[in-house]
C-alpha cells in the first residue's frame, strides 16, 4: 500500500458558479479582504442564442513538483508526505518569491501577518478526518477530495473513468486539482492585469 496522496477533482458539469466554496474558504480560514485562497473564475463565450457561461473554481493545485517549494529560500514552504503544500508561519520571511514563481497566482502576502498564505486544502480539517471546507460546502457535490493513491477511493474511481484536465501541465508542476469538462477559454490565462486596487 503506497502513501496517502490527496487530490481534488472538480466536476464542472455540476458547478453552478454559486461561489459557496469561495465563501466557505474565506470563513474557515479568515482570509483577508481582497485576497482569496480559492475563487470561481467566470467566463462567457458566444453570442445569443449560441452562448454559454463556464466556471472554473481556482485553488492551490498542491503540485507534486511545486515551484514554490523549490524556490523558497528558507524551506518555509514544504510539501507534506500526503502532498499538501504548507507554509510554516514562523519560518516564512515574506520574501514573496513563491508568489512570483507560482503559475496559478494562488498565493498572497497576508496584510496583517506579513507572511505568505495559501490554500492548504484545510489541512486542519483533513487531519481531523473532515473534508476541506469548500468540498464540504459545495451544494451540487461538484468537488471530490480524497486519496488518489487508493484505487477504491471515490476520487480514484472518478479520475479513472472520466476525461480529466489540469491547469498549465506544460509547467511540469504536476497539479493535483483535476477538472472534468473544463472549458478551453476558462483555463486560459486572461483578463485585465492587476490595477493597484486594494
Amino acid at each position, binding site marked *: 500500500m503506497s502513501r496517502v496522496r490527496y487530490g481534488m477533482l472538480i466536476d464542472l458539469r455540476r458547478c453552478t458558479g454559486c461561489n459557496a466554496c469561495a465563501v466557505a474558504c474565506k470563513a474557515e480560514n479568515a482570509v483577508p479582504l481582497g485576497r482569496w485562497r480559492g475563487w470561481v473564475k467566470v467566463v462567457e463565450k458566444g453570442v445569443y442564442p449560441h452562448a454559454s457561461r463556464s466556471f472554473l473554481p481556482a485553488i492551490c493545485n498542491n503540485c507534486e513538483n511545486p515551484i514554490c517549494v523549490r524556490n523558497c529560500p528558507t*524551506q518555509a514552504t514544504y510539501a507534506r508526505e500526503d502532498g499538501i503544500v504548507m507554509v510554516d508561519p514562523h519560518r*516564512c520571511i515574506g520574501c*514573496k518569491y513563491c*508568489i512570483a514563481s507560482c503559475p496559478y497566482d494562488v498565493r*498572497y502576502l497576508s496584510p496583517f501577518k506579513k507572511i505568505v498564505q495559501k490554500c492548504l486544502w484545510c489541512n486542519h480539517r483533513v487531519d481531523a478526518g473532515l473534508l476541506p471546507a469548500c468540498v464540504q460546502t459545495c451544494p451540487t457535490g461538484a468537488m471530490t477530495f480524497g486519496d488518489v493513491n487508493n484505487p477504491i477511493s471515490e476520487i480514484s474511481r472518478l479520475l479513472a473513468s472520466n476525461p480529466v484536465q489540469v491547469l498549465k501541465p506544460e*509547467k511540469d508542476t504536476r497539479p493535483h486539482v483535476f477538472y472534468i469538462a473544463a472549458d478551453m477559454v476558462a483555463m486560459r490565462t486572461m*483578463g485585465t492585469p492587476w490595477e493597484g486596487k486594494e
Partner: protein
Amino acid sequence: MEEGVQVFYNVFHEPPLGVPIAIYFYMTGLSAGSFILSTMAYGFGMIKYKPIGKIGVVLAILLLVMAPLSLIIDLGQPLRFWHLLLYLQPTSPITWGSFLLTIYPLNCLIYGSFMFAGNARMTRLFGLIGIPLALSVHGYTGFIMALGKARALWNTALMPTYFLVSAMVSGIALMIIIVIIQGLVFSKEHKVNRDLAFNLGRMLSMTILLDLFLVFSDVILLLTADTDAREAAYMLLTGSFSTYFVLIEIIMGALFPVALLMAPFTNKRLVPVAIAAFLAMVGVMAMRYVLVIGGQALPLS
C-alpha cells in the same frame, strides 16, 4: 481575446515584487561592474585602468552594503532575515544569494585594504578571487528571474547572461562619469584623463551592442514561443511597458549612447561621452524596472 469571449469574474493578487527589488538588482549590477573594472588594473595589470582601481573597489563595497538593505526592507518580516542563513534551500537562488552577498563584500574589503596598503601581490590574488564572486553575485539575480518559472518574461536561459552584460554596461558607464568628475573636481590640475574616458567609452559601446543583441534574441523568441510569451512581447513593444522598454531602455538607453560613442564627431568629446554614459545608466535601470515590474504585470489566473 477572441470575439464573444468575456471574463466576468477573476481574481488577481497584488504583484509580489516591487521597485526595491529592481533597485537591488541595479545596485548589485553596478557593484559587480565596478569591481570587475577595478581588477583590470590590479588583477590583470592593465596600467591604463589604474586610476579607477581604487574608486572601483570603494564603490563596489558601498553599493553592496546598500543593495541587501533594499532587499531586507522589502521582506514582509525584515527581522527574520537571518532565516536565510540558517534554514537553507539548495535549489533556491535566493539561498545561493544569501551566501554570495555575505562572501563577496568581505572579499571586496580584503582586496580593497590590500590595495590601499600597497600590497600588489595580495591585491592581485584577492582581485582574481573576486571576479567569479562578482559574476556570481550578479549572475544569481538573473537566476532569480529565470527560475521564477511562472512569468513568461523571466523564464529564459538568456536571463543570467543578460543581467551580467547589462551590469557591465552600467558599471562602465558609472566609471566614465566617475573619471570625469574625479578629473574636474578632485584632481590637482582639474584635468580629465581623456584617454581613459574615451577608452572606457569604446568599451561601453561594445558592451551595449552585446546587450542589444541579447534583447533582440529575447524579443524574437518571446514573439514566437507561446501565448504568454507573445503577450509579454506585445506588452513590451506596444503595450503598457512600451515607454519604458522601447523609448527609455532601447532608444534612449542603448541606441542613442551607442551613436554618441561611435560617431567620429562625438566620440572624442567629453560632454557627449558623459551624456552617453548617463543615458546608458538610466537605460539599465529601465531594463531592471521593465523586467521586475513588467514581468509580473501579466495575469496568471
